C-alpha cells in the first residue's frame, strides 16, 4: 500500500486523477468537435446556398431562403445550360491566355532565378532588387502605362504584317489574346523568379561545381541539372500562376474593353456580364460561378500532391 502511494506520488497520478484527466480529455474533445462542425457548416453554407440556388427555378429562388433545398417540382438544370452557353467561348479564351502565360512566366522566372542565384556576375544584386520591387507594383498603378503601351505596340498590325490572319484558324480576337498572354507572362516573371530563387538557394552548390568540373557550361548545367531538379517548384509555380492568371479581371477589362468572348474576353469578364443587368437571375449566376471555378479545382486536384511536395523543401 505504501509502495503504491509512493509510485503515485512520483508519477503524480492516482486513480481519481486518471479518471479526471480522461473526463477532461473527452470534454475537450466534445467541445472541439462541436466547434469544428459549426465552423465547417458556417464556411460551407454559402457554397451550399449557391449549389441549391443553381438548381432552383426562378419562382423557387424568389420564394425560398437560399439555404433551403429546391422545393419538389422546382428542380431544374436550366440555369447550368444558360450559364454554360454564355461562358463556354469565354472559358476557351481564358485557357488560351492562362496556359501559355503560366508556362512562359514559370520558365522565364526559372531561368532568371538561375542566372541571379547560381551564376556569379556583377550587378546581380541590383537586378534582383528590381525583380523584388516589381512584385510589389500594384496592378492599378500600371493600368494606364499598360494600356498606353499596347496602344503604341500594335499587335494587330504586327500579326497582320506576318500574314497571320490569312491562316485558316486565325481570328480577330487572337491579337487581344496575345496581348493578354504577353502581359500576364511579363507581370508573373518577378514572383516566379522569387519562388524559384528561394528553391535554388537550397540546392547544394557542390552539385553545380560538380557539373562544371564534369565539363558542363552554364547552359548545359541549367538544362541537365537545374531544370530537372526544379520539377516540384514548377508544380508550385504552375498552380500559383494558373490561379492568378485565370482569376485575373483588371487587365482583361482594360485590354479587351468589353465582355464579348468574340473580342477575346476571358471568363471573368463574361461572368461579370452574366451578373449584371436589371433582373437578378441568381440561379444562372450561381451556376456560372461554379462553372468558372471548375478549371482551378481540376488543377488543384491534379497537381495538389506535387504542390505539397514542392512547398516542402
Amino acid at each position, binding site marked *: 500500500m505504501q509502495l503504491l502511494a509512493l509510485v503515485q506520488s512520483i508519477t503524480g497520478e492516482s486513480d481519481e486523477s486518471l479518471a479526471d484527466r480522461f473526463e477532461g480529455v473527452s470534454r475537450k474533445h466534445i467541445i472541439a468537435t462541436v466547434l469544428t462542425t459549426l465552423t465547417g457548416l458556417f464556411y460551407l453554407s454559402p457554397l451550399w446556398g449557391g449549389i441549391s440556388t443553381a438548381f432552383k427555378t426562378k419562382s423557387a429562388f424568389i420564394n425560398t431562403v437560399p439555404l433551403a433545398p429546391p422545393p419538389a417540382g422546382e428542380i431544374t438544370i436550366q440555369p447550368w445550360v444558360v450559364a454554360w452557353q454564355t461562358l463556354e467561348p469565354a472559358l476557351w479564351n481564358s485557357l488560351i491566355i492562362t496556359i501559355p502565360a503560366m508556362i512562359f512566366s514559370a520558365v522565364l522566372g526559372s531561368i532568371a532565378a538561375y542566372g541571379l542565384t547560381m551564376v556569379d556576375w556583377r550587378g546581380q544584386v541590383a537586378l534582383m532588387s528590381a525583380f523584388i520591387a516589381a512584385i510589389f507594383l500594384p496592378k492599378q498603378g500600371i493600368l494606364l502605362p499598360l494600356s498606353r503601351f499596347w496602344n503604341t505596340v500594335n499587335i494587330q498590325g504586327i500579326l497582320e504584317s506576318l500574314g497571320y490572319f490569312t491562316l485558316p484558324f486565325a481570328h480577330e480576337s487572337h491579337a487581344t489574346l496575345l496581348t493578354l498572354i504577353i502581359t500576364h507572362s511579363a507581370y508573373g516573371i518577378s514572383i516566379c523568379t522569387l519562388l524559384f530563387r528561394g528553391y535554388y538557394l537550397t540546392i*547544394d552548390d*557542390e*552539385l553545380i*561545381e*560538380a*557539373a*562544371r*568540373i*564534369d*565539363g*558542363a*557550361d552554364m547552359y*548545359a548545367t541549367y538544362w*541537365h*541539372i537545374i531544370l*530537372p*531538379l526544379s*520539377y516540384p517548384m514548377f508544380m508550385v509555380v504552375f498552380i500559383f500562376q494558373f490561379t492568378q492568371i485565370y482569376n485575373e479581371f483588371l487587365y482583361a477589362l482594360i485590354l479587351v474593353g468589353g465582355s464579348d468572348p468574340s473580342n477575346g474576353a476571358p471568363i471573368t469578364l463574361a461572368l461579370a456580364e452574366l451578373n449584371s443587368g436589371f433582373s437578378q437571375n441568381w440561379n444562372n449566376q450561381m451556376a456560372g460561378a461554379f462553372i468558372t471555378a471548375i478549371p482551378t479545382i481540376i488543377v488543384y486536384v491534379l497537381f495538389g500532391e506535387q504542390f505539397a511536395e514542392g512547398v516542402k523543401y
Partner: protein
Amino acid sequence: MANLTFDNVTKTFQDESGEIVAVEELDMEIRDGEFLVIVGPSGCGKTTSLRMIAGLETITEGDIRLDGTSIRGTGPQDRDIAMVFQSYALYPHMTVRENMSFGLKQSTDFSDEKIHDTVTEIGEMLGIPELLDRKPAELSGGQQQRVALGRAIVRDPKVFLMDEPLSNLDAKLRAEMRTELQRLQEELGTTTIYVTHDQTEAMTMSDRIAILNDGELQQIGTPLECYYEPNNQFVAGFIGEPSMNFIRCTRDGNVLSTPDFDYELSQSTADTLGSQTELTLGIRPEDVEVVRNPAEPNDVAVEVDVIEPFGKENNLHLAPKTRNADDTVVATIGARTKVEPDSTIGMRFPEEHLYLFDGEDGTAVRHPTAEQEELAPVLK
C-alpha cells in the same frame, strides 16, 4: 598522368573586415602519379588550394601549372581534372549510370556505346555493377561514395582532386575505403591530390604529405619524414596520434629547466644546439618510458592522473609531483603493463627520442637520433 606545380600562389578573399589571406605564397610540386595529401586544421587553406586547382576559385597571385602549362584563368571544364566532393554531389535525378556518363557526355565526343562500355567497366572495377540503374537516394553512404569515385575515374583525367571524401563515412567503412582508394590509385597511377584534416588518412594513404597552417606550407615530405623530422612544432604536433608532448624549457648549458623538473643533456647533444636558451622540448607518447621508481638522473616522479585503455595499449596522463605546469604528459604503454590510477611512478625521456624546437618560432632545432638505426632493418 601529369605533374602539377604551385608557383608562389596566393589567394585572398574580401570580407567586410578587410582582406583575408587564405593561401599565402604556396610553392609546391606534385609529381606525376603521386598521391599527395594536403592536411591541416580547419581554415588552413587546404580546400581553397584544391579549389584553385579545380578552377572553382580564382588565383589571386602566382600560377598553377599542369604539365608545365598555366591553368590560371581557364574554366574547370578546360582543365581535364575530376573531383570527388565531401558531399559526393551526385545528381539526385539521375541514375548511377547517368551520373557516371554525364562527364563523358559533356567533355568528350565519345559515342553512346563507348560511354556505356566505359561506365560498365568502371562500375565493375568498383564492385557496383548492380547499382548502375539505381538513383543516388537508394544507395547507402558507402555506395554513394563509390559512385562519386566512379564518376571521377570514368573521366580518366590528368589529376584527381578529392575533398575530404571519406569524412561522411563511419569509422569501419572509412578504414576500408582508405585501403581501397590506395589500391585504386596505385592501379590507375593518376596524380591525386587529397585534402583532409585527418592525419591518419594523411599518414596511411599518401606518397607525400603537405601540411598547411594559416595558409602557409609548413612541410612537404613523405609520411615518415614528417613524422620523424618535422620542420617545426606545428607539424610535430599535428602528425601523430596521440599528439607529441611539448614542454617549454630554458636551456642553461647542458641543462633544460622546465617548471617541474630539470633535464640534463649529454655533451654531444648540447654541442649540436645553437645559442637559443628558450626552447620547447618534444617527445612522442610512445617514446616516454615508464619505470616503477625514478632512479636515473633524468627520471621524474609523476602521479598517474588518467588511464585511457585502448585494448592493445594504454594512454597514461602523467602529472609531475610538483604540479607547476597545468599540462600532463601523455605516455603510451603496452596494455599488459599494470599501472594503478593515482599511483606514483617514474617517467623517463630517452635522449635519443627527444625533439627540441625554438621557443619563439617553433622551428625544429633537434630531431631524434634513434630512428634511423631502428628503422633500417625494417625498411630493408
